[in-house]
């Protein structure tokens, strides 16, 4: 077993990337991602990590460099946030369509305007449909473990897709947490060397990134969608074997005190820890409230979600992004759509909270549950807006 130390989550994540013996890191500085790549550049400079650190001139080029290096057969990592993700978005979509197993840590941050460097999920929701595997982390240990898991899943020949690790900016990236580090031997057992299916090399000539006529584009899209769905068992297998190695069990959907719960809160990311405190308090007060943590966002674990929410009368989805002019916020959209055809479907309430770094406390979550339960307008509300 590895050692447990108190360390900033960004630094731990970078150390994990280093332990994975990545070949190329390409990144542009953006708050609150910076500590991740700063530490990686230190590791490269000191020789602790034998990788090419490519300090690019923009996030657009960061993802482009990642595509190039991944195509060459190199294990590739990048990290960004908000506006950076927006700038690289074009290539984010192409990376998954071209099946490059890049791993990206996204330090979740609000989008401009007004300019905000603080946390919410507006950035990741922008690329929700980009075809990446997307996972959310609740605490530092999860972030650290996710790095090894992500490379393993991404590079699995049955998958060959990029993975986005969502880490709440500042709320998680900049906090010091007790993290159990992996040893090199553990990584060696868990993460096989990257053996890409196709690479750019004169020994075997390939053309990558051809254009698709209307006769082929739909089929290509269908194949890509199937590939993302097929990653689901590989993701689960990765977590199962991670549990054998570390004793920490992760799954696509996780239930906390949901047994016999009438009301279930569903959330993603670090706000789950806050919500779990609220659940504890409400349970103490005799209220039948539970929490469902959604860790895997793409591919969406539809059946697991159905199972987790079965039996609840009310579900409160805590969204961290606004979908302007839409029926509801992004996560709620999915939950309402999943539950619509279920027998005894629950009322699905939607509250958007914690935008642009606005603090959310356990008491706030309790208030949200109370207000949602008396709300019969099944649209969405933004919590705590000052008039």
């Amino acid at each position, binding site marked *: 077993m590895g050692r447990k130390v108190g360390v900033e989550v960004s630094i731990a994540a970078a150390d994990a990337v280093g332990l994975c013996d990545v070949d190329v890191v390409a990144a542009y500085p953006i708050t609150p991602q910076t500590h991740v790549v700063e530490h990686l550049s230190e590791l490269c400079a000191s020789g602790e990590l034998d990788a090419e650190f490519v300090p690019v001139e923009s996030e657009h*080029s960061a993802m482009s460099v990642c595509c190039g290096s991944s195509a060459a057969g190199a294990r590739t990592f990048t990290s960004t946030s908000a506006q950076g993700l927006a700038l690289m978005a074009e290539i984010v979509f192409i990376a998954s369509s071209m099946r490059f197993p890049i791993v990206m840590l996204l330090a979740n941050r609000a989008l401009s305007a007004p300019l905000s460097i603080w946390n919410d999920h507006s950035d990741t929701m922008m690329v929700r449909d980009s075809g990446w595997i997307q996972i959310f982390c609740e605490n530092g240990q999860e972030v650290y473990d996710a790095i090894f898991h992500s490379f393993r899943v991404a590079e699995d020949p049955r998958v060959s897709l990029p993975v986005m690790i969502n880490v709440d900016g500042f709320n998680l990236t900049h906090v010091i947490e007790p993290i159990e580090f992996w040893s090199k031997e553990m990584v060696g057992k868990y993460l096989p060397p990257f053996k890409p299916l196709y690479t750019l090399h004169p020994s075997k000539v390939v053309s990558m990134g*051809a254009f698709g006529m209307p006769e082929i584009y739909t089929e290509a899209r269908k194949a890509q969608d199937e590939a993302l769905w097929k990653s689901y068992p590989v993701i689960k297998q990765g977590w199962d074997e991670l549990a054998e190695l570390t004793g920490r069990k992760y799954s696509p959907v996780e239930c906390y005190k949901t047994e016999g719960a009438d009301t279930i809160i569903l959330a993603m990311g670090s706000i789950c820890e806050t919500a779990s405190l609220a659940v504890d308090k409400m349970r103490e007060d005799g209220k039948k409230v539970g929490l469902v943590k959604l860790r895997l966002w793409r591919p969406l674990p539809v059946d697991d979600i159905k199972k987790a929410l079965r039996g609840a009368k009310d579900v409160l989805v805590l969204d961290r992004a606004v979908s302007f002019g839409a029926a509801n916020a992004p996560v709620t959209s999915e939950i309402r759509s999943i539950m619509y055809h279920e027998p005894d479907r629950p009322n699905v309430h939607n509250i958007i909270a914690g935008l642009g770094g606005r603090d959310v406390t356990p008491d706030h979550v309790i208030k949200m549950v109370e207000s949602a339960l008396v709300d019969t307008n099944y649209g969405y509300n933004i919590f705590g807006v000052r008039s």
Partner: protein
Amino acid sequence: MAETEKKKVIKPIKNFSLEEYISSGHRACQGCAEVLAVRHVLKAIGPDMILAMATGCMEIISSPYPLTSWNVPWIHVAFENAAAVASGVESGLKALRRKGRVPDKDITIVAMGGDGGTTDIGFQALSGMMERGHKVIYVCVDNEAYMNTGIQRSSSTPFGATTTTSPAGKNAPAGQMTWKKDMVAIAAAHGIPYTATACPSFFTDLQKKVQKAKEIQGPSYIHILSVCPTGWRIQPNKAIEYGQLAVDSGVFPLYEVEQGIWKLNRKPKELKPVSEYFKGQGRYRHLDESLTTEIQEKINSRWKKLLDQCGEKTEK
């Protein structure tokens, strides 16, 4: 066959590869000098290369899935990022070679884009690639407009040319009212070891320059004038001729900048008048005498400046 014709012997060109790395059957327009330029670039480098290509004419004519014209490893990602993708390929291979995961073979990395993908939308990625010092040959195949999307102006379209987005009219008598961006000088200003202009009408010069770039450590930039019969409104059999005229009229001089030293590669005894180059090109049909004179004056002053930069005598 007449006796005299029989005696004509074509001299073998030294180092000229008989291999074809872009195969025939591609979908380029008739008489396309750009695909000819690409062919010569590839011949000059040989099989041990990886090519990252920007979206544009060359990508579209060569890669309609499931077909490909490329006999070398080839990758296309997007319009503006050929230089960045090439940077990634170079960095990836560097790390993999160091770690012994790919054979320690010398592979030339090439990035290629049209004038739009180079001087406009791909400008930043190119600047980044050159500044960071990746060992990549960047080749701009300049046909002086966005030909792939139907002849729209770029910052490499010359003053006086009409395109579908720089049409000549009362308020824009010249059509394109701005002067062609001097991408070669900008590349040279990055302090990279090798920069050059070339044109497939002078293909031995072109191949020599590409081979030079291949041997040089660090980034290199080659700007190739690629005559486009479709966009320039000329007959398909005139591409080579107009390339020669562009060079010999001083519109597109052939020179190189090696380790900061400028060198002229072709010095006509006397520049041909630009009107001779314009003649027959539909894109210049609207130009009157005064505009032609204005352009001629600009060419003369630029030529003089270039001769100075190249340390050539400027007696005239």
